[in-house]
């Protein structure tokens, strides 16, 4: 029995400790945002955050996740109340087929938590491990810039309200 902390909730999982996290997320926990792309850590569709680092969940045995903090797209917001990264991706219409987008959003989230105003070059470098075969890279780039702005606004809002 392995205990996983996913999006702030503890889950008891009855799975072989060698099983990669992606399979447990999708099959056992029914968190279907992370996608199976290549299963080889080459495409990034399965990217989730572990202790704030973007990782390929298809190459992440659950035995390595004891006591670690896992986050998926489900933690960024919901369909009704999308978070800033999700809103930015919707507003820039960054998805074409959309299969790579959950991984892209998680990698963008990790970047923006470390760097509130990344440059174009920094975004390109950070997002390089994730692939998109539809060719929406320019829209994804714009979406990450927009997400950075949205996050900054959100950070500023409570301060302004408090001053009022």
């Amino acid at each position: 029995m392995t205990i996983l902390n996913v999006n702030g909730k503890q889950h008891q999982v009855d799975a072989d400790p060698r099983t990669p996290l992606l399979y447990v997320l999708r099959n056992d926990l029914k968190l279907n945002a992370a996608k199976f792309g290549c299963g080889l850590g080459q495409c990034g569709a399965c990217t989730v955050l572990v202790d704030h680092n973007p990782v390929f969940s298809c190459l992440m045995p659950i035995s390595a996740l004891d006591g670690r903090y896992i986050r998926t797209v489900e933690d960024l917001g919901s369909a009704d109340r999308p978070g800033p990264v999700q809103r930015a991706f919707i507003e820039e219409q960054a998805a074409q087929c959309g299969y790579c987008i959950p991984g892209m959003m998680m990698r963008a989230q990790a970047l923006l938590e470390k760097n509130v105003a990344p440059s174009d070059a920094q975004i390109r470098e950070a997002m390089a491990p994730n692939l998109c075969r539809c060719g929406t890279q320019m829209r994804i780039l714009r979406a990450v810039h927009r997400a950075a702005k949205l996050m900054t606004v959100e950070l500023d809002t409570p301060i302004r309200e408090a001053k009022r």
Partner: protein
Amino acid sequence: MIAAPSQHNGGWMVGRILLGLLIVIAVAFGAFFTWQWRGALPPATTSAHAFDPGIVAKGAELAAIGNCAACHTRTGGKPYAGGFPVETPFGVVYGSNITPDRDTGIGAWSEAAFRRALREGVARDGTHLYPAFPYDHFTRLTDGDISALYAFMMTREPVDQPNRPPDLSFPLDWRIFAAAWKLLFLDKGPWRNDPTQSVDWNRGAYLVEGAGHCGACHTPRNALGAEDKHRRFAGGSGEGWHAPALDATSPAPVPWSEDQLFAYLRDGFADRHGVAGGPMQPVVRNLRHAQDADVRAIATYIAAFAGPRDTADRQRQTQAALAFAQQREPTLGSLVRTTTGAAAADASSAGGTLFAGACATCHHAGGGLPASRPVALALSTPVSDAQPINLLRIVLAGIHPPLGQRGPIMPGFSGALTDPQIVALVEYVRAHFSRRPPWPNVAQTLAVLRGKEAP
């Protein structure tokens, strides 16, 4: 009173000896100072149009074989404009700007000044260059090849980028120590062919010992940083990686052959050894500009260090390594991927469990992408190397082609696995895929590497 004169005599004698010693030291230093003195050479004016394109092309090949761009280009910088930090046990020396910019590069250097720099390690203004610039190898270049390299460098794009002074501790920041080093270790002069060897071997020797300067990393260095000529290619270090031995003590499970070396240097992949990684990746990428015959000659010369080929002993070693690799390589059936209701895994080690979940998807018989299947780990040199540093570096950072280029790829696990997990994984890989004894220092080496990672 009787003893006094002799005492007086004794003190006088000591004084005379001391004075004599002082004079000898002063004369020796004077002689050394005169010997090491190099004047500035007059500035020259050249034009990129003055060079024959054929000579420039020949220089381009030599610069590629010499991997000049690696140390003379900083990450993300303009080619040959310098700034790359070369770490040595004595401090950091930064590659200089060798573009033909007149003020910050070598634009004012005549060919004679360029030749003196390569042959003697002296800049145009007469300062001694530190041996991080491997003039102990470039001194072997022929006049014709130095002319070609000069033509190539003088036809590059000039870049205005001032040189960064070396970060060496006192007193090594005194250039006269570079001169003293040369007095002790620099054996000047072009390569001389060995008539008892083949034409190929001699061509390979010239390229390896001269422009290629392979020994700069693969030969161990003495306490003063000079290559130990008695242990040529016995393994050294470069750019924070261990440069494995290329002689008979090579850690490669299958002994290197000329054909395998050729494949490795030509394509960056040898099917009994694996892909070129670490600092060998740019070396191999640059070698694409070299001719087949030259790469073959390099392979011939290096293979000769690994020992006589096709002996019964070597064949036995090869067969044993291949059999061991086949026996140890995981098969698809061993990759259990069950989720709900799985039985507890067999009581394998923590490292074995991590390997099955994180690595075995690619590292099993027939695994990986069809276009770039990884070699069996039991054939891989980093796994059987004397030190764990190269395997740790690969596990942390993965293997990636330069941005936007094709090449074998492995994801890094730096952000995914914790330090104890990486140690367990690497110790498991060593125990399972190598017949060599365990490394005693995996955790310590990892701590050093983690300390060096960007925060």
